[in-house]
């Protein structure tokens, strides 16, 4: 058991080393969401009359945070597909390590990267007027929530990465699915303006429940979903927790199984 722990830590450490050896990757991974913050804040921020205290940026930040951690799925999928393609996964599979070490190491590594990204985004947000008003404990809780959501999304990424086996394919597939998912939500605009069927989807979308949960934890009224009276809209924190547990409970075992059988 102790051995298993150290196995996955070696894999996680490898990822941290990669960040040090090629800092550009992390820099771009951080600049992109920071740019999003600035663009949305200044392009839409003026046009959207939010009606909340502190302006649109209060609603925007939780949205961008959730969008960013949702993309952990992409980081994991692309990273693992690249390892598959280069035959690294085969080499790992020929080593006397536990069957889950490589994928756990990967998901943990991607979550650690999220910490850096979230800190940078939080700071940029602060610079452009984001002021969480719920006190340090709830703010911290909000960030933990984001990390946990990113971690659970990462497990879907494991399955995708091991299934498509090619970096480019993984990249396209993931962007085609995660982007719509993050926009068909309450992250940037109210769900109440959407056509009925989309609205229904948006309200049950885990991205929406996460955004609503974060708005609550950061002390901003969630006016983008305020009038929605579906159960997830009314209980976003609980619903988000349920989603996270479900994601890990479903995808972790399937992904480990996939890893054991996968073959280049």
């Amino acid at each position, binding site marked *: 058991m102790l051995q298993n722990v150290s196995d996955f830590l070696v894999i996680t450490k490898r990822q941290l080393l*990669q960040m040090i050896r*090629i800092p550009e990757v992390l820099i771009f991974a951080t600049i992109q969401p920071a740019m999003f913050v600035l663009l949305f804040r200044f392009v839409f921020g003026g046009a959207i009359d939010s009606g909340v205290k502190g302006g649109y940026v209060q609603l925007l930040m939780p949205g961008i945070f959730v969008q960013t951690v949702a993309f952990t799925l992409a980081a994991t999928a692309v990273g693992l597909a690249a390892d598959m393609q280069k035959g*690294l996964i085969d080499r790992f599979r*020929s*080593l*006397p390590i536990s069957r889950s070490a490589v994928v756990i190491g990967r998901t943990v590594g991607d979550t650690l990267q999220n910490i850096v990204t979230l800190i940078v985004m939080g700071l940029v947000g602060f610079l452009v007027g984001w002021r969480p008003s719920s006190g340090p404990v709830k703010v911290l809780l909000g960030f933990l929530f984001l990390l946990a959501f990113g971690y659970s999304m990462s497990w879907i990424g494991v399955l995708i990465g091991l299934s498509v086996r090619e970096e480019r394919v993984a990249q396209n597939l993931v962007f085609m699915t995660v982007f719509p998912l993050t926009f068909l939500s309450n992250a940037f605009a109210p769900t109440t303006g959407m056509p009925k069927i989309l609205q229904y989807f948006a309200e049950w979308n885990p991205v929406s429940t996460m955004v609503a949960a974060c708005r609550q934890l950061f002390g901003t009224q969630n006016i983008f979903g305020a009038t929605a009276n579906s159960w997830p809209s009314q209980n976003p924190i609980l619903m988000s927790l349920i989603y996270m547990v479900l994601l890990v409970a479903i995808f972790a075992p399937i992904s480990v199984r996939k890893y054991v059988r996968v073959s280049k």
Partner: protein
Amino acid sequence: MNSIIAHELVKTYDKGAVRALDGLNLDVKEGTVLGLLGPNGSGKTTTVRVLATLLTPDSGSATVAGIDVLKHPDEVRKVIGLSGQYAALDETLTGWDNLNMFGRLYHLNSSGAKKRAEELLEKFSLTEAAKRPIRTYSGGMRRRLDLAASLIVKPKVLFLDEPTTGLDPRGRMEMWEVIDDELKNQVGGERLEITVEANQIPEATKLVEQVTGTKPSVDNGIRKISAPVSNGSASLIQVLRLLDDAKIHPLDIGLKRPSLDDVFIALTGHVAEVVVEGGANVAKRK
């Protein structure tokens, strides 16, 4: 002991459309080098992957170093080294990072992994490139590092799949030299071998042990005594003197260097792929 036994291995792909292995049998003695020769698509890689526990055969059975590949894959992984058809390394990390990481994954402790990484870099003439990312390495350097990674724990069975494809002639030569050296290293270099009359075996054995400091292995059938030596010629002279003093006249005496036969190199240097399989006593190849 047999280092590899394969019995009626069958492996098909694409729901049976491709029959890659069709009842493969192998029986490889410990301490031998086996080259698998065959045209592209004849199933060499598939064989290696099944034996290295990466692929489950449709039917049949196999043992590697005496361990059942299907029943105890985890145990098999502890005693094998695998260097696949393409160098499987983390391109963004340095050579040193890679070996250190694999060392840790073979469960060497922190200082053990570092020490082994340095030894291997030195042995494969990669010390200078150690701190450079793999993506700056030449094809030959990558293959050498890949081989180094598969030797971290001194495997009982080493699988090499096309160790020289993609390399230029010089790179190939270098790679074969490295492999040849490694096989010698696995057994600690030269051995002193003497053949004497049957009734002289006990005494001669004692003398050889006295000089070499290790217990010689004795084959009573062919009346041969052999022991590893580090300073070959000096030991040889010393043994000869002692034998002479004891009035024992050996029928044959000499130093044996383990090496890949020239024939083998000539053959495999020109064919697509080989599986080189080394054991703890490669030197005993006759």
